[in-house]
C-alpha cells in the first residue's frame, strides 16, 4: 500500500515539476470569443469562428505573441441576447480574458459590449455594420467591418461613375435595420452627387411575390438606369429572377447580403447578368494573402470559406494580434490603446485604418460583378 502511494507521489511530483517549468515561461494569453454556432445566426457566425480558430492556430505555430501562445476561449451565443450577455460576463469575470472578439450583429454587439467597456477590456465586433457602434459603446468598443454607410456610398458612386446611371429605383426591406440603413445611405449619396431617385418601394423579409414592385418599375417611363436593391439573403434571388423574367434588364446593385451562393443558384445564371454588389472581400480573388487564407481554410475544414464573415473572423484575430504586438505590455488598456495606432492593417478583407475611436474603420469596400453565374472582382474602393 505504502509502496503504491510512494510511487504515486513520486510520479505526481515529477509530473508537477515537468509541467511547472514551461507553464510559467509561456502562460497562454487568454482572449475571448462569442460566436453563435447554434440558432439563426450560425450560418454567418460559424464560419467566422472557424476562421478565428484557424488564425489562432497559425499564430501559435509561429511562436505566439511575445513568446506566449494564445488561448481562445469561445462561448456559443446561441443567437440569443441573454446568452450572449451571459457569455460576455463569463469571459470578463470568470475566465478573465484580456480581449474579446465576436458576433456578427449590431444588436448582439450592443448587448454584450457594455460589459467589456465597464471592465475596461477591448471588444472587437466581427460583423455588425452599424457605422457608429464604437461611439455607442465607449473607448473599448471596436469594429472589424466597414460601416453600412461605406458600402452604400461605394454603390452610389459606382452607379453614377461606372454605370453612368442618372436615375435609380430603390427597393428596400422595411423589416431590417441593415436594409433600411443601406437604402438611406445610398439615397443620400446618390442625390448628393446629382443622381435622381425616380421611385421607391418597400417589401417585407421573406416575401415571395415581387410582381407589384416589378410592375411599378416596368410602368416607369423612361425606365430607371439602375435598381438599388437593399434586400436580405434569400429575397434577393427571388426578386432578381422575377424582375429579369418580366423583362427588366437594367443593372441591379445590392449590398453584402447578395454575397451568398444562393443568389446564382436560385435566380439562375442567365438572370444574374448585370447584377453587382458590395461586400467585405472577394473569395474568388487570387491576390496572395486571400488565396493563402482560402487554401489554409480548405486544408483545415475540407471546404472553402462559406462567406466573407470567415474573412472577418480571421482578420479579427490578426488585428488583436497586431495590437498585442504593438502594445507596450499585455494589459487590456495597452492593447486597447494600440488598436488606435493601427492605421494600415493589411487583412484579407482589405486594408483598414482604426484610428477613429468613434466609428467603423476607414476600410476598402469590395465591388463584385456577377458574370456567367460567377462572382468577379471589380475592385476595392473607398467612398
Amino acid at each position, binding site marked *: 500500500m505504502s509502496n503504491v502511494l510512494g510511487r504515486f507521489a513520486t510520479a505526481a511530483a515529477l509530473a508537477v515539476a515537468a509541467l511547472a517549468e514551461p507553464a510559467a515561461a509561456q502562460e497562454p494569453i487568454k482572449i475571448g470569443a462569442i460566436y453563435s*454556432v447554434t440558432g439563426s445566426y450560425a450560418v454567418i457566425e460559424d464560419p467566422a469562428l472557424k476562421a478565428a480558430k484557424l488564425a489562432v492556430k497559425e499564430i501559435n505555430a509561429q511562436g505566439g505573441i511575445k513568446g506566449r501562445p494564445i488561448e481562445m476561449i469561445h*462561448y456559443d451565443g446561441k443567437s*440569443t441576447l*441573454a446568452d450572449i450577455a*451571459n457569455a460576455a460576463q463569463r469571459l*470578463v*469575470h*470568470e475566465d478573465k480574458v484580456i480581449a474579446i472578439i465576436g458576433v456578427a450583429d449590431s444588436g448582439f454587439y*450592443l*448587448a454584450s459590449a457594455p460589459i467589456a467597456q465597464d471592465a475596461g477590456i477591448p471588444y472587437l465586433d466581427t460583423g455588425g455594420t452599424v457605422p457608429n457602434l464604437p461611439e455607442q459603446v465607449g473607448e473599448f468598443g471596436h469594429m472589424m467591418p466597414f460601416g453600412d454607410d461605406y458600402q452604400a456610398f461605394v454603390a452610389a458612386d459606382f452607379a453614377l461613375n461606372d454605370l453612368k446611371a442618372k436615375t435609380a429605383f430603390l427597393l428596400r426591406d422595411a423589416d431590417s435595420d441593415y436594409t433600411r440603413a443601406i437604402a438611406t445611405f445610398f439615397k443620400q449619396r446618390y442625390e448628393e452627387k446629382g443622381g435622381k431617385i425616380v421611385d421607391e418601394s418597400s417589401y417585407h423579409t421573406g416575401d415571395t411575390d415581387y410582381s407589384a414592385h416589378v410592375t411599378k418599375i416596368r410602368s416607369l417611363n423612361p425606365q430607371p438606369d439602375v435598381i438599388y436593391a437593399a434586400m436580405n439573403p434569400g429575397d434577393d434571388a427571388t426578386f432578381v429572377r422575377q424582375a429579369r423574367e418580366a423583362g427588366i434588364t437594367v443593372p441591379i446593385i445590392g449590398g453584402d447580403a447578395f454575397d451568398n451562393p444562393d443568389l446564382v443558384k436560385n435566380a439562375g445564371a442567365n438572370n444574374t447578368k448585370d447584377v453587382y454588389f458590395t461586400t467585405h472581400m472577394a473569395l474568388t480573388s487570387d491576390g496572395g494573402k486571400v488565396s493563402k487564407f482560402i487554401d489554409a481554410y480548405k486544408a483545415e475544414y475540407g471546404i472553402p470559406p462559406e462567406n466573407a464573415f470567415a474573412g472577418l473572423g480571421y482578420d479579427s484575430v490578426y488585428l488583436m494580434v497586431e495590437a498585442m504586438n504593438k502594445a507596450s505590455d499585455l494589459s487590456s488598456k495597452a492593447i486597447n490603446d494600440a488598436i488606435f495606432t493601427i492605421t494600415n492593417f493589411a487583412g484579407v478583407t482589405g486594408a483598414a485604418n482604426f484610428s477613429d475611436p468613434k466609428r467603423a474603420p476607414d476600410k476598402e469596400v469590395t465591388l463584385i460583378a456577377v458574370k456567367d453565374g460567377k462572382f468577379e472582382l471589380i475592385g476595392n474602393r473607398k467612398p
Partner: protein
Amino acid sequence: MRMARARKAAVPIAVLALLAALWLAQTQLNAFYLQVLGLLGINIMLTVTLNFAAGYGGMFSLGHPAFAAIGGYTAAVLTYPVAMKGFRIPAYPEWLLQIAVPFLPALLLGGLAASIAAVLVGWPVLRLRGHYLAVATLGLTVIVQVSIVNLVDYTRGALGLSGIPNYANLWWIYGFALLTIYVVHRLVHSRFGRALRAVRDDYVAAQMSGVNVARTRLIAFTISAFFAGVAGGLLGHLLRILTPGQFSFNAVFIGVAMMILGGMGSITGSVIGALIMTILPQFIIPFERGGSFLGFELPALHGLTQIVTALILIIVMLIRPEGIAGSKELTLGPRLRRARGPSERTMQTSGQTSGSEVEAK
C-alpha cells in the same frame, strides 16, 4: 382560515433567510453570477405569472412574451437618459423626451401598459378556449414583435433599444418575484381563485354556479399580464438592451417549457422549472467548447445545452406528464397540512381534475 404556529414562524424565517442570501449574493458574487441569478428571478416571475393564467386559469396563453415586450419597452422608454432620447427615440412627444422617470414608477407603468393591452386583446380573444386561444395569443406575440421592428423612431427597430440604465439588481428582481408569488398564491387560495379554477375545469358548471365567467377570466388574464410586463421591465434594465428578437417564438417556447417542466397549476413547480431551465445550462456551457476535463479530452459539443434541456423535458414528460411538481406545492412542514381549514382542503382536491394525480394530503 386558521394558521398553525409553525407556519407563523416558518414564513418570517424563510423570508429572512432569503434576504440574507440575497445580501450575500449582491455583495460577494461577481457580475456574471449576479446576471445569471437576475435572469433566474425574472424567469421565475414570468413562469409563475404564466402559470396563473394557463395552469390555474386554463388560458393557455402564448402571448406572454408580447406583454413582457410591452412592459419592457414602456419602462425602458420612461427611464431612458434624457440626453440620448432626443436622437435615439425622437418620435415621442416633447414632454416625454424631457423626463427620465425613476425605476419603480416606470416598472409599474410598464406593467400597467401590459395590462391595458391584455384587456384590449382579452375582451374578444378570451371568448375562445383551448388551442383557439393559444393561436390567437400567439398572433399577439407576432403583432407586437413586428410592430417593434417597424416603429423605428419609437423603439429603434430591429437594432434594439440599447443604453438602458442598469437599475435592476437582485433586490428589485427578487422583490418583484416574491411579490408575484405572494399575489398569485393569495389569489389562487381565495374565492376568486376557486371561481377561476371552476371556470377552467367546467365552463358551464361554473356559469350555472353563478360565476361571471368572462369577467373572472379577463381579470386573471390582466393580472397575469401585469406581472409579465413588470418582468419585461426588469429584463431590459438587467441586460440594458431590448430587441424584438427577445420576444419571439423562442421566448414563447422557453416560457411554456419552464411552466410544463415544473407543473401546470403549481407555484413551486414554476420555480423549479425556471431554476432548471436557467441554471442547469450554465453548468453545461463550459463543456460545450471542449478541451480537457479531469484528464479527459473532449471535443467541442455545440448545442449540448439545448440537447440536455430537451432531453430533460422529454424524460420528465415520459415519467411525470404532469410536470415535476404536478399541481403540488412545497409546504412549510407537516403541521401546516393538518392545520389547513376544511374549506381549503376541498378546494385543493377540486382543482385536480386536469389529469394529474390526486395529492396525498
